């Protein structure tokens, strides 16, 4: 109906998928203003590409793929190797007193931890641990074969494990889940 030019149809899509997209974009930035901007970008991208939507997959999967690409592009577009968490996110202020088990604090720590990984590993770990999607869907989102996805997942996990050998990370993660 959107393709046929029905104006209300797109607003229904925004209403139906908006929150899920915003949740997904939170994986790419902790800053509410950036999340807003990225969510907006996803819908604009979706609108411009509606004609390419093939009805062989659920619409939410199609949207999730656009969201993944948009978020990844956001990471790539920034010079993020130095103090990303503090500077790259502009006005964002992390929680002053994080407490163990606090969901917001856990999310911040997870974001900070994954930000230490190279972008491609960071994306895979985000999809796997936060979005909780399996190998098949990761392959689809990354537009690669299942075998290639399995190799990339394995490598990303190795790098994450290496981070876990650093006392500072192990200590913080254990404290948060205690």
């Amino acid at each position: 109906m959107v393709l046929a030019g029905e104006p209300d149809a797109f607003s229904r899509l925004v209403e139906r998928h908006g929150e899920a997209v915003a949740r997904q974009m939170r994986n790419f930035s902790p800053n509410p203003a950036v999340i807003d901007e990225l969510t907006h970008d996803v819908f604009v991208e979706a609108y411009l590409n509606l004609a390419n939507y093939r009805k062989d997959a659920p619409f939410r999967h199609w949207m999730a793929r656009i969201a993944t690409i948009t978020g990844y592009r956001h990471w790539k577009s920034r010079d993020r190797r130095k103090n990303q968490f503090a500077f790259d996110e502009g006005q964002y202020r992390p929680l002053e007193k994080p407490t163990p088990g606090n969901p917001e604090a856990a999310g911040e720590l997870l974001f900070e931890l994954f930000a230490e990984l190279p972008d491609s590993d960071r994306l895979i770990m985000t999809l796997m641990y936060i979005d909780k999607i399996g190998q098949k869907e990761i392959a689809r989102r990354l537009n690669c074969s299942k075998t290639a996805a399995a190799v990339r997942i394995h490598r990303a996990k190795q790098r994450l494990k290496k981070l876990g050998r650093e006392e500072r990370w192990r200590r913080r993660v254990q404290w948060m889940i205690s």
Partner: protein
Amino acid sequence: MDDFLKEVRMLASAAEGRKPPHFDAQAILSSVSRLVPEPAQEQYRLGFLAALTASAAAASLAMVSYASAAWLELRDPFLALSSLTNAVDWLWL
């Protein structure tokens, strides 16, 4: 599984209870609505497409339709007139 990966999984579970982020459906819709082509522009595009496919009659018809849209929606007599001239040209060809 490595202990640290298990802990990361637990950390991700703890993060599940986060409050949903704010999203402004109206702001999204208003910027998307700016991307919607004007009917007149759309008809011009169709006219151009028809011209490309060398269908003179179709192009001519589309130009007439564009001319009427230019007049009715944009109130632009020059645009309407030039579109009509184009329509005649296409028929002549």
